[in-house]
């Protein structure tokens, strides 16, 4: 069952320097119980895509178009263009979010009990003690010892990993169908990263929710995701199952990303490969292929091919690529 259906989502920011096309036509589906990773470097639009339909971007200077359909208890709703009050009820209830930096994502002046209970109270007309019991239940689920006592603690009394656990507990207070995890492990130590990812997997199995995992780290994706969407310059450039992506990356950008990860099986002394050049300016981005300036395989193509943007094509079953190198294979999506 498809829980979330994103179609041709576009996000533009009006800035003094010009129109920034942060997201330029992104489409993907999220099915119940699956984890979709959205991978890309800073400025690729991976976070903005999800903040946009959550209504968490500053509205005055932002244009959002396209369609995002969400399956809720009350049927399918369109999130784009929904009024603020409607979106507010979706947030935290149907779709919950956790963020990159648990140090700053919790309010420093309120106890975590207060913040957890508030997350439950806002969507449920129940007695505070019910919300409190729910908070204790979830804190113990995410691995916080002595949860009833810890409700009285302030965020600064927790370590970074523990705070992220509290954030996860807060996100799950209302049993959401979709959890958006925006770089949930980036600010954490590597050992803690693994614990948090495992926790997310366990909770997902337990509650059957779907997860959108936003990250720039393909190492995180490998163990955590079912499907991977690679974003570049505000567009999806490759989308496929996680095993297929690691075994058979097609788009030169994805290949470059995978080559830049250190690997145990490649021996010592070998230099890591980096992708040359810089991410493109989203203001100056023209009609051509956004990756052309950094593409090492450009010379395989006839002169002038990269002046036009390639289509996202299904090159083989379940493997979509936006690349001129695969122009004559498969069907455009």
């Amino acid at each position, binding site marked *: 069952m498809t829980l979330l259906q994103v179609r041709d989502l576009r996000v533009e920011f009006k800035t003094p320097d010009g129109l920034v096309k942060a997201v330029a036509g992104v489409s993907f589906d999220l099915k119940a119980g699956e984890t979709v990773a959205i991978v890309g470097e800073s400025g690729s639009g991976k976070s903005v895509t999800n903040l946009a339909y*959550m209504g*968490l971007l500053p509205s*005055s200077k932002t244009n959002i178009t396209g369609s995002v359909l969400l399956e809720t208890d009350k049927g399918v709703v369109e999130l784009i263009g929904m009024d*603020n*009050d409607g979106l*507010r*009820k*979706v*947030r*935290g*209830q149907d779709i*919950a*979010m956790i*963020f990159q*930096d648990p140090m*700053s*994502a*919790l*309010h*420093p*002046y*309120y*106890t975590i009990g207060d913040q957890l209970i*508030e*997350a439950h109270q*806002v*969507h449920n007309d129940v007695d505070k003690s019910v919300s409190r019991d729910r908070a204790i239940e979830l804190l113990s689920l995410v691995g916080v010892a002595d949860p009833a006592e810890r409700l009285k603690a*302030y965020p*600064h009394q927790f370590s970074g990993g523990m705070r992220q656990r509290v*954030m996860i507990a*807060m996100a799950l207070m209302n049993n959401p169908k979709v959890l958006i995890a925006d770089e949930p492990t980036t600010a954490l130590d590597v050992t803690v990263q693994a614990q948090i990812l495992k926790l997310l997997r366990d909770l997902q199995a337990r509650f059957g929710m779907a997860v959108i995992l936003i990250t720039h780290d393909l190492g995180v994706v490998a163990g955590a995701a079912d499907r991977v969407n690679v974003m570049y310059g505000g567009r999806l450039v490759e989308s496929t199952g996680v095993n297929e992506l690691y075994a058979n990356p097609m788009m030169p950008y994805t290949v470059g990303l995978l080559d830049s990860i250190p690997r145990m099986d490649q021996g010592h002394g070998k230099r890591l490969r980096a992708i040359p050049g810089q991410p493109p300016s989203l203001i100056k981005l023209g009609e051509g292929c956004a990756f052309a300036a950094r593409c090492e395989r450009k010379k395989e193509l006839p002169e002038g091919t990269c002046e036009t943007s390639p289509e996202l094509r299904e090159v083989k079953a379940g493997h979509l690529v936006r690349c001129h190198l695969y122009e004559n294979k498969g069907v455009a999506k």
Partner: protein
Amino acid sequence: MSGIWAYVTRRLGLTLIILLAVSFAVYVIFSLLPYDPAALTCGKNCNDPGIIEANRVRLGYDKPFWEQYWLFLSGLFVGRSFGTGAAAIFCPAPSFGYSFQQHGCVTNLLVDALPVTIYLAVGALILWLIVGVGLGIISAKFRGKIWDTLSTAFVLIGTSLPTFLTGLMLIIFLVIKLDGSPFPSDGYTAPEEDFGQFLLSMVLPWVTLAFAFAAIYTRFVRSQILEISTEDYIRTAKAKGLSDGRILGKHTLRAALAPIVTMAGLDFAGLLGGAILTEAVFNLPGMGRLSLKAVVDIDLPVIVATTILAAAIVVVMNMILDIAYAFIDPRVRV
């Protein structure tokens, strides 16, 4: 919270040391002034060396500096007599000395003046906090809209109009030109004398003093709210599905409390030393006017006393603020 009392004790000790240093610095500075304090006690046209020398002995100005400073300090705790025998004047503790210009113990002058300034400062503080915080919130909530523009205009006017001009305009239009004006034109009435008349006599000074501060606070609160609105924990609050009103009222304002309290505390402490312009314009017998008169008359004991008192108020307020942080910010408590 047991740690908090250790903290308060430590802070209190530090405050006492600072106050001692301040009193010493003030005393040194004023003893270096090129005036003969004994000659000043005798008035402008006094040339009788007999009276001057007699006063020098009575006030202790004939003693070396350290002894004078010691007499001043001990006077603060045990009181001090000036002169001997039947003509002696005793100023009980805490004695700040004796003012020959005003013919009285300095402490009595302070006791008369301080309440007036406190009434002025407290009323103005309440007024400017209500207006400044209120407009700041409105301005931030309707950023870029007409309300924001209007409050920006208010900020501009409030920060550019000098207090004496605001005060004088209020007097001209609401007291002199307004027939049957309820506001008195002859200055201050003490609250224990006639409370209604006291309120009427204080309204215009309060408005005058609060006007300038309200403008500054509007701008400050607006910028604080806009800055806090970009914090990650505010995004978390939105992602939880809280309403805008609750986010502003609970999460944003709570975070803005500490900087607002700090600023209000320091401004308030500064005013207790005397709102010189406002007191002068409205003829209020407060600390500001006392200091002003003392400076004009070169009434050294009063200048020393008001300076030390003003410094002491600021130092003590700093201590109170530090302790208040412990209640406002759980991270300070530990």
